[in-house]
Every structure is written in structure tokens, then in C-alpha cells.
């Protein structure tokens, strides 16, 4: 069928007005999500409140969160992680934080901008990326294909490490959308994702298992300055 035929069917169906009883069941809600903020869980007004929410949720979701004072401390933290896990090959993308923290991190470092291909990325021990924002209300990491090294970096390697700065910790999802609109305007990235915890499944007997298909571990390193 053509577009017009399908839309024609829709219009014809809608030409009969809805039954008042049915309409009444949806008529009394607050429509605007921004007004609805007041009955959604809070994100926090100050950095301290937001960080408290983010780490509380992160703990539940088994996210490893490190709050470090400076970028050089962050570099040390990633290096320590690399040593303790014995990383041989890691992948990353170019942005101000990763450009400092990633080089020299493992014997082999591949960069997404060089188009390494799926097989090379799949064999990495970790993917290290920046993010658009951290969301306090949900404990999520907001990534996009433009700002976080593409679509696969944050999901294919078994360990995802995120570097973020203090001002990137936002209160809620709506503030995340605002940030994307401000930064990209109409030209939003083709891929946007709220990552909330490591990959998981409960499909076998409802027992939680981490690392179903995506990363088994998610580490967030938040730089205070």
C-alpha cells in the first residue's frame, strides 16, 4: 500500500469521534512531562544531591563509580584498572578526556576514528569512551554516536569505561534532552542511548545474570574539577 492509502485508513477510522467513556479515562492526566516532573523521582538540585542519587542507583545496578579530583587522577584510575584486569587491547575515540587518559593504557590501543572494523573491536578487553551526560535521576550514562565514539564502542567490548566531568552530571532525562537539543540542534546524532547499568538478563528463571550480550562491567570515572 502507499503512504496515502494507509493514512487514508487512519483518517477514516478517526472520523468517528471517541466514546465519552473511553475519552474520560485519559482526559484528566497532566499532559506536559515538564509539569509531571513533580511526581517523578528527583534528580537533585546540587552536585552533591545528584551524585548521591547517581551513586545510590549505580550501586543497585552494580555500576562501579569512582569520584576522582583531577584528570590525572582519572588517568591513574584507568591505568590501575588496566593493570588489575590485565588488558592487552583497548578501544577508544578521540575527545579531550580520552586523549589524555587512554594512550599508553594497554599494549594495543585502537581508535574508532580509524574505522578498525567489527572483528578488531570485538577482540578488545575494554572500550573507553566519553559521554554526553550522566543522569542522576536514573543512574544512566547518556551516549550518542557523535559524542561517544559511535554505536558499537560502548556495547561490544566486555568492559565499558566512561569518563565524565562534574558539570556533565545532570538531574534528569529531560535535562539530557535539553543538552542534546542545545548541542546538536535539529541535526541530532543517528544513535542516542541511555545506558543504565551493565548488560543483564533475567530470561532464565528470572535470575539476574550480568553480561548477557553487552558489557559485563560498567565503570564510571567522574572527575571533580
Amino acid at each position, binding site marked *: 500500500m502507499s503512504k496515502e492509502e494507509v493514512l487514508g485508513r487512519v483518517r477514516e*477510522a478517526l472520523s468517528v469521534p471517541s466514546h465519552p467513556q473511553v475519552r474520560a479515562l*485519559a482526559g484528566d492526566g497532566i499532559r506536559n512531562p515538564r509539569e509531571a516532573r513533580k511526581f517523578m523521582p*528527583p534528580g537533585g538540585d546540587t552536585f552533591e544531591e545528584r551524585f548521591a542519587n547517581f551513586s545510590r542507583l549505580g550501586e543497585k545496578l552494580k555500576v562501579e563509580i569512582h569520584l576522582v579530583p583531577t584528570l590525572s587522577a582519572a588517568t591513574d584510575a584507568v591505568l590501575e584498572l588496566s593493570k588489575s584486569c590485565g588488558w592487552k587491547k583497548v578501544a577508544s575515540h578521540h575527545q579531550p578526556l580520552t586523549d589524555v587518559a587512554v594512550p599508553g593504557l594497554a599494549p594495543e590501543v585502537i581508535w574508532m576514528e580509524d574505522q578498525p572494523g567489527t572483528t578488531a573491536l570485538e577482540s578488545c578487553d575494554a572500550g573507553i569512551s566519553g559521554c554526553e551526560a550522566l543522569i542522576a535521576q536514573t543512574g544512566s550514562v547518556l551516549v550518542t554516536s557523535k559524542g561517544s565514539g559511535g554505536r558499537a564502542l560502548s556495547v561490544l567490548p566486555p568492559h565499558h569505561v566512561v569518563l565524565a566531568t562534574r558539570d556533565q552530571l545532570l538531574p534528569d532525562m529531560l535535562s539530557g534532552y535539553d543538552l542534546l537539543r542545545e548541542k546538536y540542534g535539529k541535526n541530532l546524532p543517528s544513535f542516542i542511548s541511555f545506558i543504565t547499568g551493565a*548488560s543483564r538478563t533475567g530470561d532464565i528463571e*528470572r535470575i539476574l545474570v550480568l*553480561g548477557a550480550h553487552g558489557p559485563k562491567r560498567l565503570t564510571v570515572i567522574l572527575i571533580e574539577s
Partner: protein
Amino acid sequence: MTTPLTQFKSDTKESTVDFDHRKWMQTALKGYENTRGGVEETFGDFDQAKRTGAAIKWEAIENLDTLLEEMTQNLEARGTKICWAGNGAEAVDYILRVAEDCDAKKVIKSKCMTTEEIHLNPAMQKAGMEVVESDLGEFIVQLRGEDPFHFVFPAMHLKRNKISKVFEEKIGSEPSNDPEELCMIARSYMRTKYCEADIGISGANFGVAETGMISITENEGNARLTTSLPKVHIAVMGIEKVIPKLDDLSIMLPLLGTAGAGQWLTGYNSMIGGPRQEGEVDGPEEFHLVLVDNHRTRLLADPEQRDALRCIRCGACLNVCPIFKNIGGHSYGTTYQGPIGSVITPHLRGLQPYKHLSYSSSLCGACSETCPVKIDLHHHLMRNRRDAVVEKGGTMERFAMRQFSKVMARPKLYRSCEGLMRLGEKCWRPLKGKKADPLKAWTQTRELHPPAPKSFHKQWKEKQQGKS
């Protein structure tokens, strides 16, 4: 001949006497109710959030034509190809053509109930392609050659030993009794499948008109891999999934996570607005969105029941339904099980062959109460019953109801029938549930309370006389 009704009867006859399985289901679903309850409490006011969700989806349904236009125009502007499919066959044809154009041999899929509805997998396999379901639950039922048991938890009916057995038989793994090991078997098997696949097929939980995007909700990361790695991505989406604004997701995603799985937000909530764009390092070269009507407009044309199109497929109504808990998902014989399935299947596949589903309900209303977008589910079941009778009522039933109303309207006749009933009951009692019992179908699994020795009328009369 098997009809949906005979299949339903024979399946439920089997599943309702499997007490172990019923207990297993009830324990699992109790677990869901508990975790969900805890998450609801983290909202300032969960009921208000539900109202907002309902209002958003209602606005979308009442403006479906303009929102679909807005969404597809925005998607097309960034290189997405749109297919408008009037029915399942058209959607399947389009997908097969795309597959042929890119010479696809291997297909990876993430969970998508709409593709179950249009029977995509058998058609692709018939055309010579390998199709692998990547969601763990879907993968398990695919290996077993079964339909999903529950449209959110496809393999919830299986214990680990059965899962281990099917892995052993079908993909040659070592037996295991550990859920984590079983997951890792699937993970490593699937890794090569992602890398080799020519096409990735996904569903969509929402379509955002304002920005021209689809939104996919998942926990495992399989949908992200399916939509990132293959050169071609095809998303299949029912036309009712569109919502007006990007901001609306800030309500809809928590509602879906909470109602669906008792999670405040699921692991990955991803939005896709086109194929790989200029300046991006990876992503598919082609992105196709297949919009499926397949009789959804028939439901939309019903002014009393069109709110059923608000459904976000969270599966909450199944989880709380006393019928679902006891008969299980396969008995329904439909793509969508439980209360929502019983409401919409008669619209999607025909009222007469599926009217029995509207009777497989106690009308307790737990479904309507739990629904995060406030669909009037149990009243719709009654509306389906009414419509089925108006369309094609049984002669016997009509005759019986007419006699019944005559008797009820005439006190003298009623009282004389009362005596007859008492006598009848005495004669019938020894036959109860036996071969010669004319009411056997009903009475063999049910108890009829014997009538009181004296009717209320008589007792009242005697009491009044005693007083005076």
C-alpha cells in the same frame, strides 16, 4: 478440524491440571509483583505518572495521521527508507526485497512481537536465509521451535534443565545447571552471529514524531548490537507506536520499565534516527522502517475500544491475570497473550473465531488496574462479548435468556419453578459428573452448592408470622 476454540480448550485442559507448572508460574509472577511494588514507591506519585502516560498515548492515537506524517518526514530527511504496509504480507514482501537487494544470507534479530505477528521468520527461512533471534528468551524458544510463552518473558515457562538440554541438542554445548553459564553459552554463540549478519532486524517500542526517531527498550544489549553492526538495519513497528514529543519519553520509558519488569529504567533505552550520518564512525549504511497496519486501523475505527491502541506491550496485565497464571501463554494461541491479547486479537484476526478469549476472564479488573496507560481492559472484554452476541448470537442461548427473563418477571411462576428446581437437583445429584450427567462439561470440575432447605421467601414469611 482444529479451530482456535478447540485448540484453546484442549491446551487449557492440559495446562490447568499441571499443578507443578501453575505453582512455578505463580511464584515467578509473585516475584515480579514484589519488585514492581518497590519501584512504584520511588515515584512521587505513580498513579499520576500513569495518567500522564495515558494522556500522551491518547493524544497520539487521536492524532495518529499527522504524527505518522511528521515522524516519517523527519526520518526520510536523514536517509531512512519507509515502507507503509497495509498488512503482514506486504511487510514481509518488502523485507524480502530489501534482503534480496543486499544479497543477504544471514539475519540477526532482536525481540520484535510485530514480526511474530506477521510471521516473518518462516518467510525468511523459506527464502534461504539463516535467521537468529538474539534476545536470550527468544533464542531459547526459537531453538525449541516454540512460540513465545509471554510477549515480554518468552521463556518464562522453562526451567534451566530444559534450557540446558535444548542448547546441548541444537548448538552442541556442554550441559550446565548454572543460569550464568547458560547465558555465557548463548553469549559466545551469538557473538559470531552479530559479526557475520548481513541484516539486523529490530522492533520499536516508540516512534518519536518531533525528532523522527524510533526508541528501543531492552536489558541485554542485543538490540544495540543488532542495530549497530550489520550493514542494513530494518525496524518493524506497528503504526500505533508513535508519540508526539521527545520529552514524552521521559515519562513513557520509566512507565515501561516499571510496569514491564519492575525496573525503574531498563538497561538500554536507545533512539535511532537514521542510518550512519556524516561524521559518525560506524552504524548501518541503510536504515528501513516498516510501518505495519495489519488491522490496527480496524481497532482504531472502534470508538469504544480504540484506547487499546495505547498499549505499550509491557506485559503487566499478563503478570497479574489469574487466568494467565493458570493456563499459561501458549494456550491463548495468539501473538499477544493475556488480557490485552484477548481484547485486541478479535480485532486483528476476527471476532467470531477469537471471541472465546473474552470469556476466559474472571472480569476481576486486575488488568485495568495495573495497566500503566490505563486501558479499560476488562470492560473491553465485556464489549467484545456483547459485540460477538449482537453479530451472531446463539439461538439456544437467546431462547434460554428469554425464558429466564419471563420467569424472573413473574413471582408466581418463579416460585413454582423453585419447587421444580429443588426436585430436579435431588434427582440430578447422584449423576453429577458422570457419563449420564447432561451438565457434565460444567459439573465435572465444579461444585454446585445444594439449595437451602427453605427459600428466603419462605423463611421471611415464617419470621413475619412469628412476630405477629
